[in-house]
């Protein structure tokens, strides 16, 4: 087809060729969008070198069965008649020979690149058919030719929403991105909800365990309290809250917040932790310095002990 001299003489868009454009999705806007879409399809067919009016004229004696071929191929079964405005005129002007020309134009668009109109049928967006405005642009001729064979079949049922074709997921990156964004958004919402439910559930379980603990025998309770107090003592010394203590602290905090009686060890923990909160960061340093002092004291004590020992050892030896 591309070897046809009639095609070679026609204008082609160099920019579109440079961009490697092989197909297109026509998106129609507004009440006269259908007409604009047809004009655009025809213009694009020319610009991509798929068809030219000259080429179409030369193919005027084509068998009319091409129309039904196109119609069947794309599942459009009705050539719509519109009862308003210029569309009627356009239809009336469409002679049989024009239909034939146009059908070949449709074939020409389909044949070399294969996907131009396929894509067009699948991405049509916009207003209703009809209510066409009169335009003096000469592109109307091409639009009318295109509309006779392909417009009324492919662009006829224009809907006001996306018609995304079945392979959109493979070919239309934007659709995929949008879906992914929405999915991510949804997942993040769900994740937040899961976290909240998880936190609530953990607290519920811990409170249940607390309830069970209160039903334990007295000596077991005492042992538990002692273990907790030991952990609090460790915390006082090291400043490190053991996970076991942390879990119990969270429960008691919740209990305290709710205005109920906390366990005995908790007050000890609060005392141990409150100066930390008041003084702030220096506590670690204080603790370190205190430790250092203790160490120094221990060293001095040991040294003095050694002196004593040496004295006691040497004296008898020398003597």
């Amino acid at each position, binding site marked *: 087809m591309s070897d046809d001299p009639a095609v070679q003489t026609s*204008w082609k*868009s*160099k*920019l*579109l060729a440079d*961009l*490697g*454009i*092989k*197909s*297109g*999705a*026509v*998106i*129609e*806007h*507004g*009440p*006269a*969008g259908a*007409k*604009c*879409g047809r*004009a*655009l*399809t025809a*213009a*694009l067919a*020319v*610009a991509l070198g798929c068809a030219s009016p000259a080429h179409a004229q030369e193919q005027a004696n084509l068998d009319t069965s091409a129309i039904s071929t196109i119609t069947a191929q794309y599942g459009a079964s009705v050539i719509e008649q519109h009862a308003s405005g210029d569309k009627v005129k356009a239809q009336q002007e469409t002679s049989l020979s024009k239909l034939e020309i146009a059908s070949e134009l449709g074939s020409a668009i389909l044949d070399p690149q294969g*996907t131009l109109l396929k*894509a067009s049928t699948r*991405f049509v*967006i*916009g*207003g209703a058919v009809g209510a066409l*405005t009169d*335009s003096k*642009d*000469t*592109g*109307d001729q*091409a*639009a009318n030719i295109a509309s006779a064979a392909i417009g009324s079949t492919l662009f006829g049922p224009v809907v006001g929403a*996306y018609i995304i074709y079945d392979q959109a997921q*493979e*070919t*239309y*990156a*934007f659709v995929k*991105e*949008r879906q992914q964004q929405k999915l991510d958004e949804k997942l993040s919402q769900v994740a937040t909800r899961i976290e909240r439910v998880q936190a609530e559930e953990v607290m519920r379980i811990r409170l249940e365990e607390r309830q069970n603990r209160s039903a334990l025998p007295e000596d077991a309770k005492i042992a538990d309290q002692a273990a907790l107090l030991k952990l609090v003592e460790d915390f006082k010394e090291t400043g490190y809250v053991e996970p076991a203590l942390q879990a119990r602290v969270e429960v008691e905090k919740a209990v305290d917040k709710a205005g109920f009686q906390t366990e005995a060890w908790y007050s000890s923990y609060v005392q141990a932790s409150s100066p930390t909160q008041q003084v702030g960061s220096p506590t670690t340093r204080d603790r370190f310095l205190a430790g250092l002092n203790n160490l120094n004291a221990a060293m001095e004590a040991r040294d003095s002990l050694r002196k004593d020992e040496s004295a006691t050892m040497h004296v008898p030896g020398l003597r």
Partner: protein
Amino acid sequence: MTAVPAVEIQSFGIVIGCNEAKQPACLILSCDALQEGGELARAATEAVLAGPDLMLVGTQGTLVLKNVAEAIREAALAKLPLVVIDPNTEHESLLQLRHEGAADE
């Protein structure tokens, strides 16, 4: 700001041009596939996405394509170029699409 006229149109067609891999590679406008203002599109030097509208700005005036479809907006946000063709005059021009909210690069 300047006294150049602004024409707003509701009816028009835009093509999302796809490459061999069927990936969107550019947007395509034809001067004869607009309700009016084909000459403004032909003379446009810049394309700006402003909210739901696509503006073609040129020395002769601004053509405003009202309420472009979401797919077009996304294509503009993806910085696809806009090719304006006019088979009647064999004109073609490549415009960089700019998003009004985005910083100029």
